């Protein structure tokens, strides 16, 4: 266990009194997730390689009936957790955040406008960036140019489902994108419907973590698409995902009340 690991363990297990900790460490010449209980060795902890720990936790969490879990969380992870907690997928009382502030290089890669976690344990908070360069370029294109651009990008899609598998706020066990009813094509690439449906489903949930884009073997600029849709959500409804309280406008009446017959927020 290295120095960073020791400090992290101290915060997670002693200060925050967690029973488990999820972070990343270097082993076998690679960097990957490590989920440890208080007596386990964290190994050579490093934050250099950003893994989508909230999604990784989502698959483990149903099998851990009790205990508090500390997770090293960037600002996007914090927002993702808020979205999932609102939907009852995590018990807020069982999750504690260890805030990680992203460095300028990571912020630039994600074109992140909101990079500072509520409470910072590691890293120094940096300013976000205003613009996604590609989004600006797309805005200035004609419809035809824009469509040609996206068709060119989406033809690289080979339905790996990396975007949905690794997205922290994608929580359906049975994804509609697996249904021929909605995505008619039998082979690859799937038609535009795949990407349009995904864009719609993410509109009120996406926290701009960028994992979809990082997971795409076709290097499709998915994060840019998400950002443009989030901007539209803001304009249409004054809503942005990621906080603990506000309900998605797609789940309320025109007056902002719960929809008739909807008992839970989902």
């Amino acid at each position, binding site marked *: 266990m290295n120095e960073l690991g020791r400090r992290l363990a101290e915060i997670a297990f002693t200060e925050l009194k967690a029973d488990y900790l999820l972070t990343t460490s270097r082993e076998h010449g690679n960097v990957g997730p490590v989920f440890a209980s208080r007596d386990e060795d964290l190994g050579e902890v490093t934050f250099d390689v950003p893994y989508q720990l909230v999604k990784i936790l989502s698959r483990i969490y149903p099998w851990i009936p009790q205990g508090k879990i500390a997770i090293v969380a960037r600002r996007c992870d914090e927002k993702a957790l808020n979205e999932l907690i609102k939907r009852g997928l995590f018990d807020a009382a069982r999750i504690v955040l260890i805030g990680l502030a992203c460095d300028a290089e990571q912020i630039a890669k994600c074109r992140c406008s909101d990079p500072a976690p509520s409470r910072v344990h590691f890293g120094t908070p940096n300013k976000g960036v205003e613009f996604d360069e590609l989004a600006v370029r797309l805005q200035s294109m004609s419809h035809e140019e*824009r469509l040609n651009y996206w068709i060119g990008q989406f033809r690289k899609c080979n339905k790996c489902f990396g975007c949905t598998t690794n997205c922290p706020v994608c929580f359906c066990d049975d994804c509609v994108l697996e249904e021929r009813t909605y995505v008619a094509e039998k082979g690859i690439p799937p038609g535009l419907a795949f990407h349009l449906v995904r864009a719609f489903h993410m509109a009120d949930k996406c926290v701009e973590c960028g994992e979809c884009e990082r997971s795409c073997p076709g290097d499709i600029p998915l994060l840019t698409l998400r950002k443009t849709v989030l901007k539209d959500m803001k304009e249409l409804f004054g809503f942005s995902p990621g906080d603990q309280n506000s309900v998605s406008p797609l789940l*309320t009446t025109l007056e902002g009340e719960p929809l008739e017959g909807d008992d839970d927020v989902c």
Partner: protein
Amino acid sequence: MSDFNPTILAFCCNWCSYAGADLAGVSRLQMPPNVHVIRVMCSASVKPEYVFKALSQGIDGVLVLGCHIGDCHYLTGNHRTAKRFPLAQKILGEIGLDERRLRLDWVSAAEGEKFQQVITEFVAEIKKLGPNPLREVRP
């Protein structure tokens, strides 16, 4: 394009707009033939997935017609619709499809003439927009 004959889907809710469509038909109101009406119980049951699938497969235009706000048979179903479809339109725009290929409107059971008007306007609009560019595209 003078010889372009658009293919258009119209999702009409059972209680209001479908009845309105019926009324337009029974009243022998003249309407262009390009529209395929699909009856649903409520405009809220029109999942954006259907609309996206239709457009990505080359349908030239999609109409979603529901009850006027306040008149929904299921009370707040059309509220859901009213939120969804502006968003769906924006998403079409972000991809580069013309937002005007998707239209949401409210037509009551008594509004045979409004139904005729909406259909006629929409078909004319789509004719102006031209065929869905995705008709030609092979991914």
